[in-house]
């Protein structure tokens, strides 16, 4: 063992301070998103100078928090090469649980939420063992989440537990409150997906499952871990969303499903699997969330907002492609 880990006598490849071309290329998508984000903040500030104050930033950013967390969930699944088309309904179901069971009996509510995480684990195991495409499995699951949510709370409503409402209303001086959960969750996902052994296995599964198997590791376990993490992040996203809306609505997050995919792609992830980009996803998610703020500040008619939002996303993606080509 000591034999393997003894420090190298000579190291020809000295770590350099400057990033290599390959590293630049990988960071490019997130950088393009960051530029887009900065532009949007600047546009907001020029229209409404209050945006640059702490309460203003809190207001602008708060809507993006659940989206960013859900995007981290999506990224975790995409790092193993799968995709989650049920995340929107799942987040909606969590808000329903938070507005009903979690209020009436906190213990039952917590157990139900744990059960939902476990359901994601089971989903991952099924996807792996039955070789169902994750696309189909998660799409099917989305109808289950939707149905469960509707049967618990047919119409939007309910109240959130006091502690959750307090978290939603928390306004610290000095820094915008929404930054805290965004950075905290990104750091957490970074530790899991980029620094831990489990993360290496997950990315290996997305990158080359044969190599993972030849190394004597179980692809099933890696997939189960990824799905569990996705479920946990989905629950977190739902709780944050409920804290902001103050109630439960199973369809409140239905737009998340595709928005999260877009956020991952904006942040530098890929459908191929193998890459984990938590910081990029945080930037991509905030960028996406800011688009609608900018559009409402610009007085774009609500009916047109989706179309304009799509065009902006396409423009950022095109920028990503161009930068990628330049750096190749």
């Amino acid at each position: 063992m000591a034999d393997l880990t003894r420090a190298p006598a000579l190291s020809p490849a000295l770590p350099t301070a400057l990033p290599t071309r390959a590293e630049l290329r990988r960071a490019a998508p997130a950088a393009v998103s960051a530029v887009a984000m900065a532009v949007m903040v600047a546009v907001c500030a020029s229209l409404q100078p209050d945006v640059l104050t702490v309460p203003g930033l809190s207001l602008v950013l708060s809507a993006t928090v659940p989206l960013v967390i859900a995007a981290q969930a999506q990224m975790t699944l995409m790092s193993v090469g799968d995709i989650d088309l049920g995340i929107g309904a799942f987040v909606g179901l969590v808000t329903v649980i938070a507005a009903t069971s979690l209020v009436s009996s906190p213990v039952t509510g917590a157990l139900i939420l744990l059960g939902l995480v476990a359901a994601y684990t089971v989903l991952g195991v099924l996807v792996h063992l039955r070789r169902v495409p994750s696309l189909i499995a998660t799409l099917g699951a989305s109808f289950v989440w939707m149905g469960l949510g509707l049967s618990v709370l047919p119409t939007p409503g309910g109240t959130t537990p006091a502690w959750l409402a307090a978290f939603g209303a928390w306004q610290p001086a000095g820094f915008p409150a929404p930054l805290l959960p965004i950075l905290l969750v990104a750091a957490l996902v970074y530790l899991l997906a980029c620094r831990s052994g489990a993360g290496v296995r997950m990315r290996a599964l997305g990158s080359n499952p044969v190599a993972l198997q030849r190394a004597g590791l179980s692809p099933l376990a890696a997939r189960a871990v990824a799905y569990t993490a996705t479920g946990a992040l989905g629950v977190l996203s739902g709780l944050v969303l409920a804290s902001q809306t103050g109630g439960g609505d199973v369809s409140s997050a239905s737009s998340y499903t595709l928005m999260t995919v877009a956020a991952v792609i904006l942040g530098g992830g890929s459908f191929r699997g193998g890459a984990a980009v938590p910081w990029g996803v945080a930037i991509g998610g905030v960028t996406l969330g800011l688009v609608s703020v900018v559009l409402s500040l610009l007085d774009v008619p609500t009916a047109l907002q989706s179309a304009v939002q799509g065009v902006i996303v396409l423009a950022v993606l095109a920028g990503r492609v161009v930068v990628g080509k330049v750096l190749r």
Partner: protein
Amino acid sequence: MHLDNIPPREARRRGPDGAPVVTASGVTKTYGRTRALTGVDLEVRAGEVLGLVGHNGAGKSTLMRVLAGLESCDEGRVTVRGRHAAPGAAAFRGVRMAYQETSLCPDLTVAENIWLSSRHCLPRLRRRRAAGAAARRRLDEMFPGHGVSPRDRVEDLTLARRQMVEIARASLVDALDLLILDEPTESLGPDAARSLYDHVRSLTARGVAVLLISHRIGEVLSVADRVAVLRDGAVIAERPAAGLGEHDVLTLMGAQVAERDAHRPAPSAGLPADRPVVAELRGATGSGLRDVSVRVGAGEVVGLAGLAGQGQQDVLERLWRPARRDAKVRATRAYVPGDRQRSGVLPLWSVAENLVVTAMRGIARRGLRRPAEEREVVRSWVERLAIRGGADAAMTELSGGNQQKVIVARAFASSADLVLLDDPFRGVDVHTKTGLYRLIREEAARGRSVVWYSSENAEMAHCDRVYVLRAGRVVAELSGDEISEERIIAVSFAEPDPPTAAGRAQGAPGRERPQEARNHG
């Protein structure tokens, strides 16, 4: 040969042979109808390098997978250090294999890849650093001046560096019993190859067994202590490498050893003058090819032979998409892919639809399909090739051989003048093959041209002319009676011309060499 500075073989010899590390006795393995291994007895002993040679389809890769504990054998047994071991057993932990196609995750860094495969002998704490340090140290030992940093992602590395990382990955384990190297020098330069074999010698000096698979026979002979020759799924000879010449090995492999320069490709020889040329490559270079000239006449069956992956598929690709100026193709083309599951079959369609999809446009009139004519074409082909299940069967209901018939019929049912075959008869039963060979000859007699890459040299007997490729070059052009399995094996293993070899040896400057490599023996 670029291993010239290894001490002479006699000096390396140890006295008594070591204890057997991995032993295979009477091992057989069958995939469907193909008998990959037909009873292999092989013993790899501690402290020796065993060279394993054999031609395409001799069973090398299957044998390796069985010896490495990745696959079970049908009959016979594999023992590791004298104990019977099932695949995946802990006994196989010390048996490590460096794969030719590498077994690395492209999206992960070098250190992460090393951690994945060697994690049980790395400390739990600070494992990233430990894995990186281990990777760097082993790479420094094996390939001084490798230029790989543990933080590099594998996808950003060159092919040669990936191969280095793969070999280092395989050798990084606390107790290495057997190291299997599968074509390790295929993408390495001469310098790296030499330092790898230096390291291999130092490993064997410490009692590790090494199994070396390579089609560079000269290399095997200069590194190995013993050489085992695999042919038709069995070890037909096991000889000490000392005193064995390249020609002896080739003869054992079934080659008819011809004089070195018996047949050089002459640019215009072979193609009968009265045949018009339908397709031609003139000095094609780049993307795997080096100065390849190929001519295909009307009504001719031209074979592309040699070891797998020496540029044959690139020739087909150039003929299929003649985008560059060096390719001239004056014929409509059809392509029969080798990997039928991935790029041949349309699994949801019926046999008839699969068969007629290419011909459909030729049959249609003004863009509208003509079902009656299509049915007629399908019926005639189903009859001609005796496709089981008939025209309406679902494609996935068919056996592999019958699926292959449909794929081949698809190409010939079209009006294409030039049909490109990309090793399409792998894993197809003999009966079907015979029918398809006849079909190819019949269609050629009607004036169609066929370019046929096959990894089975026996199939080349059905060709009018055969180009043998090696490392992206045409090394021989055989025609008529010259085409025989023995000749093809002989030319496809022939070492490059002496000037080239000398150039490679000179290109490798002398370096500081590891202590063990100089002193052991």
